């Protein structure tokens, strides 16, 4: 599969303060990749380096097979970027902002901006000055701006901060469609792990300037989930359960087991079904957030 982004042993410091310390990462064409990590881990710096707006100290970078330091303009013309502050002009209206950036990106068609304004629910606000927009509106316009030139690669830095739950859901749905319908490769940096858990194909965990773990959620789970907490909603009474299954908590109708193997789950369920009814079962603590903390813990 074609690798659209490749970083090999990249170092970058600002004023002698190291930010990236041997960053290695790859992003495959057509994927949605989540770049996760605490504040100051180097997420934003990575986006800047990949777009060639800052230079690296050491290492190798390739985007579309090009060197961002030498072919920055070519790379930037193929990329859309949503920066954390959205970077819009408050004295211009929403449409004027898109028109201005459209001219910079060589997209001057009115229909393009109207389509985007419509997609992000801003058509009726297009003549209002951006200074009077709410945080969520600015964010949506910022994303519309990032999509102006029909990018092949999209960088989204904290795309959902400032959006209400509805706005965040709409945006994530839009991102998913963009990836499915147009095959746009997307790199998302965020703190809000729950939102992107199901959106991303792969995750990169960045900590202190290095990628400390990467993979699909399943791969990461297989590596870090050493025991399985399974909660079962059932009418089987506790006394009927063999002691070979470790029962952790039980409330009327809900039992939580600790299993050391994923393959033990169907065995347990079959046993319960023999003795009564099972209404639901779920594995606890397998969400992205739990993985995130497990990975960071392991990294220390």
């Amino acid at each position: 599969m074609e690798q659209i982004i490749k970083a090999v042993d990249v170092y970058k410091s600002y004023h002698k303060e190291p930010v990236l310390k041997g960053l290695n990462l790859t992003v495959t064409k057509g994927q949605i990749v989540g770049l996760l990590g605490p504040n100051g881990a180097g997420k934003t710096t990575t986006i800047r380096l990949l777009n060639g707006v800052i230079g690296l100290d050491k290492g190798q970078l390739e985007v579309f097979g090009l060197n961002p330091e030498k072919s920055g303009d070519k790379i930037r013309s193929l990329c859309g970027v949503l920066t954390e502050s959205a970077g819009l002009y408050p004295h211009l209206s929403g449409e004027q902002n898109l028109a201005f950036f459209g001219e910079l990106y060589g997209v001057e068609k009115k229909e393009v901006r109207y389509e985007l304004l419509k997609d992000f629910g801003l058509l009726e606000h297009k003549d209002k000055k951006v200074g009077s927009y709410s945080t969520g509106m600015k964010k949506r316009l910022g994303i519309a701006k990032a999509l102006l030139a029909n990018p092949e690669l999209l960088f989204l830095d904290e795309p959902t901060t400032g959006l209400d739950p509805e706005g965040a859901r709409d945006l994530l749905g839009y991102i998913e469609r963009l990836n499915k319908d147009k095959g746009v490769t997307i790199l998302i940096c965020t703190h809000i792990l729950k939102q992107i858990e199901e959106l991303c194909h792969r995750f990169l965990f960045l900590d202190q300037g290095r990628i400390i773990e990467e993979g699909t959620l399943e791969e990461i789970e297989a590596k870090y989930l050493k025991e399985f907490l399974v909660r079962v909603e059932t009418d089987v009474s506790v006394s009927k359960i063999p002691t070979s299954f470790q029962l952790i908590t039980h409330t009327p109708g809900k039992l939580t087991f600790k299993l050391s193997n994923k393959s033990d789950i169907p065995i347990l369920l079959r046993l319960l079904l023999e003795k009564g009814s099972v209404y639901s079962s779920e594995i606890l603590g397998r969400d992205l957030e739990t993985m995130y903390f497990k990975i960071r813990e392991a990294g220390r």
Partner: protein
Amino acid sequence: MNIRAIKAITKKDLSSVTSNVQIILPIIIVPLIFCVVFPAILILISRFSDLNQATNLEPILKILEKLPEESSLAKDLATFTDLNQKLIFLFFNYFFAPMFLLIPIMGASLVAANSFAGEKERRTLESLLFAPVDIFSLFLGKVLAAFILAMGLAIGGFILYGLTINILGYPLFNRAIFPQSNWLVLLFWVIPSFSFLAILFNVAVSAKVKGFQEANQMSVFVVLPIIFLLISQILGAFIIDTKFLWLLGGGGLFISVIVLWRMIGHFDRNRLFESQIF
């Protein structure tokens, strides 16, 4: 070079000037005071009183005596019989010229100082640098915006100034006394050259500093030499004649080219980008 982007940036920067009260107010008020209010007061005073008695004009009279007889200024002055006429003619056509030079330079400096520093303050420089536009086009777009504004101010100010002097001065002269040929050289040679220099300097400062305030304080350094010029001239060190204006403009242009040449080597996207982070 990306003409489309240059045009877009120039247009956007000009619109940001007109929508910023902090910038547009001094840009409009200062020229009005210099080009209309101040000349009007002076002419009206001279029409109703004798300037020679009002102030000590010894230094100016001394300059007049030193003028070579064949110079065009001396010939012009010889057509006036009244001392008031001579002084008004001299003041508005010659002594005022450096002061007039200040107007476009001040305006251009303000806009140029705001160029990159303003983008940094509004946190828009980042998205500008993420665009596929080469840094030279970006820079040129900003310089052009300040230059258009400077020339607009100069030409607008020139028209207002000319109208004020000629209309209010008509009862005194019975003819238009403004402009003399030196003004065309001033307007289309010295002002463009010095505005360009001031803009380059301010854009460079603007790219280095973090905010508009800081950039604006630095821009004082461009105005200082002109104030020096003004004082030295009033002291009678020299009288501005056309030849001197040609030289002055040429000098300004020469320095601009050197500054520009030095700047192009120093201007790069990475440095500009990092200047906004720290």
